[in-house]
């Protein structure tokens, strides 16, 4: 059978369209996507006490804002590799998250990680999903209203956080005498504050509200002071893997563009009474890249 040139082109196009998903699967999977496809599972690193981003609920399952966003990425990954994958959760903390991502243990980190340039030497970040900064959590009757009031007092700081450095820098700049107690995570920092071992704890202000909400006596604590740092949060992915990064960006762009982000945000932040900041809304807009 002979075809006219126009028909031949049409037929070729149809074949190309028909074959493209299969062809994509066969040749294009590299790096993390190939690893996920081969293992049939995606490994998600999550925080255990970063309320409301990623924390363990009453059934000890990881839930939260970042976890919800990660689920969207998992859906997108499944779409890209053309099969369902299992999710394996690995708990991480500020000390382990970068190393576990750099050495390939986790494929995606869903927590409350600040995106900064030093960290980008080891890992890559998806578009910003939250904007916050360092503030101080203290007892209402402690008389502390800013960093300068910390003179002669004790403060707990989670090791490996950007807040640790922000507070240390502010303390040094003002030449204050502050006792610093290094703790491992927010839960331990809060325990130190609740048992009066320290006068204050510091981390990103949104997490402080989460800690207050989860404490037994929320009315005793207050978040005080000015922002001491600028902390844009983002989900972490492995470095030098643009194919996987693109899948993540696509998933987030879809969520941002469709406005679904508003529901997800409201689900986790309305109970804390924290409306989306204009800067964050701008970040959502900028992340909503067209197809």
């Amino acid at each position: 059978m002979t075809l006219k040139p126009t028909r031949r082109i049409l037929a070729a196009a149809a074949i190309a369209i028909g074959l493209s998903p299969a062809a994509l699967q066969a040749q294009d999977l590299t790096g993390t996507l190939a690893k996920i496809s081969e293992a049939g599972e995606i490994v998600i690193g999550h925080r255990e006490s970063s309320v409301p981003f990623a924390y363990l609920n009453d059934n000890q399952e990881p839930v939260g804002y970042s976890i919800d966003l990660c689920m969207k990425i998992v859906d997108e990954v499944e779409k890209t590799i053309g099969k369902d994958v299992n999710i394996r959760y690995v708990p991480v903390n500020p000390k382990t998250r970068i190393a576990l991502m750099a050495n390939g243990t986790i494929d995606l980190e869903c927590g409350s990680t600040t995106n900064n340039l030093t960290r980008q030497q080891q890992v890559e970040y998806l578009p910003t999903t939250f904007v916050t900064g360092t503030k101080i959590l203290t007892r209402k009757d402690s008389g502390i209203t800013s960093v300068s009031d910390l003179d002669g007092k004790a403060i707990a700081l989670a090791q490996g956080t950007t807040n640790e450095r922000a507070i240390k820098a502010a303390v040094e700049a003002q030449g204050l005498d502050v006792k610093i107690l290094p703790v491992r995570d927010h839960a331990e920092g809060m325990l130190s504050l609740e048992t009066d071992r320290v006068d204050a704890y510091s981390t990103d202000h949104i997490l402080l509200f989460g800690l207050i909400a989860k404490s037994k006596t929320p009315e005793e604590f207050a978040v005080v002071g000015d922002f001491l740092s600028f902390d844009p949060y983002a989900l972490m992915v492995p470095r030098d893997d643009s194919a996987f990064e693109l899948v993540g960006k696509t998933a987030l762009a879809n969520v941002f563009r469709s406005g679904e982000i508003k529901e997800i945000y409201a689900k986790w932040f309305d109970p804390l009474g924290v409306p989306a900041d204009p800067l964050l809304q701008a970040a959502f807009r900028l992340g909503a890249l067209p197809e």
Partner: protein
Amino acid sequence: MNYNWNWSVLFEPEYFGWLISGLGWTISVALCAWVIALVVGSLVGVGRTLPNRLVSTLCTAYVELFRNIPLLVQMFIWYFAVPEMVPEEAGRWMKRDMPQPEFTTAVVALGLYTASRVAEQVRAGIETVPHGLKSAATAQGMSIAQVYRYVLLPISFRLIVPPMTSEFLTVFKNSSLALTIGLLELTAQSQQIAEYTFQSFEAYTAATVIYVLIALCATVIMSLLERQTRIPGYSGKEN
């Protein structure tokens, strides 16, 4: 693995200083805890072998309690729970005014834990001394105190030097748990370097090498001691 290796961070003055200060804390915690462990452990170990029922039961209870609770849990109990159980004034003092609260707590926790292990070595050493010697000493008209002072302890302490070497090494390694209550010892400092530079593999390698060096030094010292204290004919090797 996408990782940028950079060994030179370890030798930057700031980070090198952290490692040295961490090493200082590790050695201080371990040695102070070792002193507590030796004193308390010897007393408890001897106590377990005494004919007095009450004393030996109490000492056995001590060993079982401290040896069977994970050290990490003990650290947390000493650090977080004990100050809440004592009267408020004392608790507040422990949390705020006690000199170096993290260091002191770590030394006490590690010392008492290690004491339970030392006590077992001491008891084993005393029980290894042939029964005839004890009977002979008693037949000479020695009191119990004299039997221990002149016969049992001089022999048993020389016998237990080799097993004590490994307890001594363990105390250095266990001191790393002090980081969980906020003491910036060697492991904590290497973690901190990892956090500041994100060169975690280099930082932990440095800690590993330093721990091995500490262990080697401790082993050399203990083997010299072992040679000095060996009872000819009692232990296996002759030289």
